[in-house]
């Protein structure tokens, strides 16, 4: 028996026994249970708090960098040089090999016009994909889900977290949030939910929607739990929640789960005070986790099917502040990683440190061009419909 067939059977068997009443009476009960993946995979990694991009990809060839950061600047001899002008923070050394193998693209100075320096607002702009002058209430991935339609399972886009980010909420469809499969399964398998019957929701769309969501959640919980047990990740992930999250993603992908978009976050980058140690710790956690994920994907010949994007809501000010930290800035670098990049290395020149706006970098690449690239060139979606206007692809994937 093939692995996939076995899985299908075992999933069916376990859900059949435990199917609550509201599932039995529901027409949509079995629509998504047999799913396995088709199409490419996108993993979005969010660095929350505003990662200091200038100390992540370091413009060591620019004297202005050291003039503005006499204490915080990373000494030239510690920088992992990628070319004669820019290099990586030493803690990013696990990513060095990806760069050298042509599996990493660095896009400098990504941002948007009229940058907002509030975490809250700027994260909203990144997550919704709106112009800075407009307030949108749906996320860019959510609107992509709206477009791909009802044929996809509810976990087509999965956030490894307790709650769902705005990025994952569409007008008619939403992504799925799960931090631990075991916990999710426990939460839906409880006595109080067991007796519910969805046979009285006709004529009440709100109630029908609640039952539909509950049904899909119960289905997904069973499926994802089974999927999470199929494969064990073999690479070594660092301790901490982020490593665990990426391990979870690796295990689901290698189990051939019918999820095409994954979303995970690492927080704590708001380094106004004593940045050096803190960012060092966070970047180490980030790089080691990503490197382990890539290793697991490669071991299963899956890295060609995967694209990983890393972003933060803004970068930080060029000039260090008086307390060993940096304050909120604007444009920042974005990383793309994958086994099948069309153009690896640096996409564009290093940030211009001579021409600043109020002490901050001026963006060169609109962040929505990154989204358009992912949606059109990778997910075979329609970026025009998602973003409301046409953004040129970066042509790198």
């Amino acid at each position, binding site marked *: 028996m093939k692995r996939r067939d076995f899985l299908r059977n075992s999933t069916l068997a376990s859900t059949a026994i435990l199917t609550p009443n509201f599932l039995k009476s529901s027409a949509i009960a079995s629509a998504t249970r047999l799913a396995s993946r088709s199409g490419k995979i996108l993993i979005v990694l969010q660095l929350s708090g505003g990662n200091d991009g200038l100390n992540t990809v370091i413009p060591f060839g620019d004297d202005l960098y050291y003039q503005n950061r006499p204490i915080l600047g990373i000494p030239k001899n510690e920088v992992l040089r990628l070319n004669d002008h820019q290099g990586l923070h030493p803690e990013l050394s696990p990513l060095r090999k990806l760069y050298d193998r042509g599996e990493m693209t660095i896009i400098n100075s990504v941002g948007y016009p009229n940058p907002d320096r509030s975490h809250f607002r700027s994260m909203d702009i990144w997550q919704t994909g709106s112009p800075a002058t407009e*307030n949108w209430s749906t996320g860019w991935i959510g609107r992509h889900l709206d477009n791909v339609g009802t044929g996809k399972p509810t976990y087509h886009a999965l956030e490894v977290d307790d709650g769902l980010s705005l990025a994952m909420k569409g007008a008619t469809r939403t992504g799925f*949030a799960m931090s631990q499969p075991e916990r999710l399964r426990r939460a839906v*398998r409880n006595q109080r939910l067991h007796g519910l019957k969805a*046979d009285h*929701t006709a004529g009440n769309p709100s109630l029908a929607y609640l039952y539909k969501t509950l049904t*899909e959640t119960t289905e997904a919980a069973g499926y994802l739990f089974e999927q999470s047990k199929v494969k064990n990740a073999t690479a070594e992930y660092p301790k901490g929640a982020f490593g665990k999250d990426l391990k979870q993603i690796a295990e689901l992908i290698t189990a051939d789960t019918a999820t095409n978009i994954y979303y995970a976050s690492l927080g704590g980058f708001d380094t*106004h005070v004593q940045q050096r140690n803190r960012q060092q710790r966070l970047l180490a956690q980030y790089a080691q986790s990503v490197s382990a994920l890539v290793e697991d994907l490669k071991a299963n010949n899956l890295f060609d099917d995967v694209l990983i994007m890393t972003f933060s809501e803004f970068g930080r000010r060029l000039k260090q502040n008086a307390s060993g930290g940096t304050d909120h800035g604007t444009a920042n670098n974005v990383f793309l990683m994958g086994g099948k990049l069309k153009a690896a290395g640096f996409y564009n020149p290093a940030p211009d440190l001579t021409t600043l706006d109020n002490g901050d970098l001026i963006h060169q690449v609109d962040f929505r061009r990154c989204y358009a690239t992912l949606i059109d060139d990778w997910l075979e979606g329609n970026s025009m419909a998602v973003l409301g206007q046409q953004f040129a692809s970066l042509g790198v994937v």
Partner: protein
Amino acid sequence: MTDHAKTHHLYRRAGFGLAPQEWLKLREMTFKDALEDLFARTQVPAGVLKAGETPDYTRKNISPKERMELQKQERQNVALVNVNWVKRMAAQKESALLEKMCLFWHGHFACETKFSLLATKQLNTLRAHALGNFRELLLAIARDPSMIRYLNNQQNKKLSPNENFAREVMELFTLGRGNYTETDVKEAARAFTGWSSNKTGEFFFRPRLHDYGTKTFLGKTGDFDGADIIDIILEQPAAAEFICRKVYRYFVNEKVDEARVQELADAFRKDYDIGQLMRTIFSSDWFYDGENVGNRIKSPVELVAGIMRQLNVREIAPQGIIILQQALGQVLFRPPNVAGWPGGRYWIDNSTLLLRLNLAAAIFQAGEFNFELAPELEQENKRQLKRLAAVMDLEPLKQLVATSPGELPELLLAATSSPNLKLSPAPDLQALQLMSSPEYQIC
């Protein structure tokens, strides 16, 4: 619809549902008297909240570390204002209608506030005008220090106007898009120049920053100031329609009956009396039509306040209320943006729904009950839920079940739906079963 069913519907929409002891009183009244009682309670002057001290972390000679400490302290102060408000929504001695109206206006005049003093002041402003005159409410909001800061009117100066407030006052607060031009926005911004606030959080007019020149706004010309702009806006037929449509969507049905909105607006624009508008809606026959009953998804704050009210939660950990708001997607004084919370299905995804369905159990469990209600929560990682430290009084619930068996489902769930549950004979378990159903999420 029976009088009893009408009373339940009214108090679900105009308030946060009824506590068992409230219902034991109201069930003896005619519907007409129950409606009068709802409005009569708003006549009792609402206690003005006392603002706490706001630490001054704007002063210059302050170390970044000290500033962060003070900011942290101030975040906790804002959280306290937030929690006190939720407790008011749940308290039977407060006017449920007034609190619901404040919540509605907070979503309408959506505003993020980081200072507890300013949050308190804004809430007092909403409270003073929530059922009063809309012009006065709008004017008070235009002069409200939180709003002035949130929409950058501090930066609105004669020589460098900032259009943020002027734009939103028309787009989101009164008229809606398509009822004004970009020139109107620019001219209105000039009229609001110099409307500022001082350090102690009072409205402060700065004459030197005000543009006293002639403006042309929505077809009228004069040396208008902000109050004139508000008056001209309210002369537009679109203003009353916009407000009535928003009220209708919130209190009656997301699917708007335009003819009814028109009717309401025609009456409303005569004197912009909000209390009268609400009374007209709640007294109408159509408000109790089947299509307008039991189809509205409660917002997170409505849900939490409702559970607290119906279970007579006497005490609850403040941090727990904040964490619930965050996890469920509605933190008071922190709307997603100036457009407010979209509401409806937007509240629901797989994680918020499961949390909602487990919420009553968590509160029961936090209330130190010994029976094993929700074993799955025992292992829940959301430790905070267990730290809700709720103290509740279930006597009224037991009394209701004892005196009028069979009325608990009607008290807790909207009239038109029933989850077909086999209910336990124990009143507390019965309440838990009902409150753990999808039906309890709607009103």
